[in-house]
């Protein structure tokens, strides 16, 4: 039970409109990711849903109940913060018990839920430690445990992995995804990392300057970005956006080709250029190519180990069916 509807929700700080009126529906059980560059209003939007900020206009409905003016604790949502926001003077057990203690849950029930959460999150051995004695990943799990025991209608995550190192981030990403598969509770997840968005989301909401640029499943966004912003934001490395005569050949103002949709050929390529930096990852090689006459730098992915190095001439052919076309306003042309 956790269908969240935003109806013309807006937010201004003083004269600055951070979020212009915005409509969005988050279906029950969906893993929805808000993604966008920093300062796009994604965290503010999450805080509006949580009730930590007051809306300047519009309505927020949670399970068709108007929650616009309901205090945060009464909305039945649990939040995991970027800094984890654990209570440093309480043990892990007390941290997890805190929301239940505030809600007046019986001691026995508290213990049952803490044990269940600790078991699910591998925290059983750490229940009597203080947050200061835990590693980043463990702290993150405590914060999630504190959210789980409330049995909320929806979980809100505010960039929860940004304080972790790269290896741990991949692990926690999987854990959160698995948690979602197990609980089937609505989750809203804010991140600026499009890889997290692509890997975890059922539905991605791409935001820019408070506007929703596109809503869709990861593959929908990958296959058919609605405009150049989404095209450039989703996918790693970024899509190559080419303007000018080359785009005009395809009857567009801008064309976009993803690095993985350009083939490296021996000769007679449609495009050619000189190799700048070659990033060898083993499974793939990324080439940054200059002097193509198309853009400053063209990024190309080649499968496997390709032995071209700095200064070599490279021949390329984009796959015609994978070229995205955009008009002068940056909107997609079908």
């Amino acid at each position: 039970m956790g269908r969240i509807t935003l109806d013309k929700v807006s937010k201004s700080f003083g004269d600055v409109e951070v979020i212009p009126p915005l409509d969005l529906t988050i279906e029950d059980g969906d893993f929805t990711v808000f993604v966008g560059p920093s300062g796009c209003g994604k965290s503010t939007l999450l805080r509006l849903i949580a009730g930590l900020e007051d809306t300047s206009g519009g309505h927020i409905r949670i399970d068709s109940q108007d929650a616009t003016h309901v205090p945060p604790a009464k909305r039945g949502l649990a939040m995991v913060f970027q800094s984890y926001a654990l209570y440093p003077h309480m043990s892990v057990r007390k941290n997890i018990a805190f929301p239940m203690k505030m809600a007046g849950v019986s001691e026995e029930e508290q213990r049952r839920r803490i044990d269940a959460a600790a078991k699910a999150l591998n925290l059983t051995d750490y229940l009597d430690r203080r947050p200061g004695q835990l590693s980043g990943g463990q702290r993150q799990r405590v914060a999630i445990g504190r959210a789980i025991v409330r049995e909320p209608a929806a979980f809100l995550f505010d960039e929860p992995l940004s304080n972790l190192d790269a290896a741990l981030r991949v692990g926690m990403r999987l854990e959160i995804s698995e948690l979602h598969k197990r609980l089937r509770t609505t989750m809203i997840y804010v991140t600026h990392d499009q890889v997290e968005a692509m890997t975890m989301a059922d539905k991605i909401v791409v935001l820019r300057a408070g506007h929703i640029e596109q809503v869709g499943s990861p593959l929908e966004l990958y296959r058919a970005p609605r405009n150049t912003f989404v095209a450039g934001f989703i996918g790693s490395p970024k899509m190559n956006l080419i303007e000018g005569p080359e785009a005009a050949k395809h009857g567009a103002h801008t064309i976009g080709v993803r690095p993985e949709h350009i083939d490296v050929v021996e000769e007679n390529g449609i495009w050619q250029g000189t190799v700048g930096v070659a990033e060898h990852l083993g499974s793939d090689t990324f080439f940054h190519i200059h002097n193509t006459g198309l853009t400053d730098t063209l990024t190309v992915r080649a499968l496997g180990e390709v032995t071209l190095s700095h200064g070599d001439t490279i021949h390329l052919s984009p796959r015609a069916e994978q070229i995205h076309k955009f008009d002068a306003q940056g909107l997609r042309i079908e």
Partner: protein
Amino acid sequence: MATQNSRSAARLMMAPAVILLLGWMLVPLVMTLLFSFKKYLPLRGGDLGWVGFDNYVRFVTSSAFWPSVSATLIIVGGVLAITVGLGVLLAILLNQPMWGQGIVRILVISPFFVMPTVSALVWKNMFMDPVNGLFAHLWKFFGAAPVEWLSQASLQSIILIVSWQWLPFATLILLTAIQSLDREQLEAAEMDGAAPLQRFGYITLPHLGRAITVVVLIQTIFLLGIFAEIFVTTQGSFGTRTLTYLIYQRVLESQNVGLGSAGGVYAIILANIIAIFLMRMVGKNLDK
């Protein structure tokens, strides 16, 4: 500083400062100990020889001793309670964004810059005077009989004056502590369903624990020795004779240096007992 040479050079360079400090501390301490075993009456015969533990026994058995210890503890305890309590409240208030924050903060801190003698005189003459004091006028305005503060409520008056002086210090330390509280913790508690008072009790107050210990420790050290406030107001009468003041009276008013020195040694012992308790408390809090 690794080699033998530079290490001994460092010792040589530091020696003057260390010797000076040691002398400054040791000479008065040794003289106090020395005098405490002597009958020494400067205006009535001077040094009258060794008397063993006579002075110590006389100082403790005097009817003024235990009242002075209790007066000391009441003043220290009262001032601590008021400054910490109000300090926390003021720190929370000053931490709220408001217009003219900078000026308000300076105003709050300013009493700390007033010398103890001056502030005590100001309180005595301007506020607490039973005829011309502002409090007297206030009481009369409401038709009540003015209170003779320094005689009828002497200990409370002293506590009030000293608290006024030390409140800025407590507020300042607690304000800096409160500013370091992570806002997300308060928001998390809010989402967890904690009401404002519960957030204060479960999050803010534990966060301030360390700062409060520091305030208590530092203030106790200074409050055990308050003198000027008593000297310019009650002169130790009406139950405001603290241990420090009693020693002053024995040495300078009764001109009995031996007896006063014995009292000084007791004061050192009392201060150390309190210090040990406080250090333990601080240690426990800093271990977190």
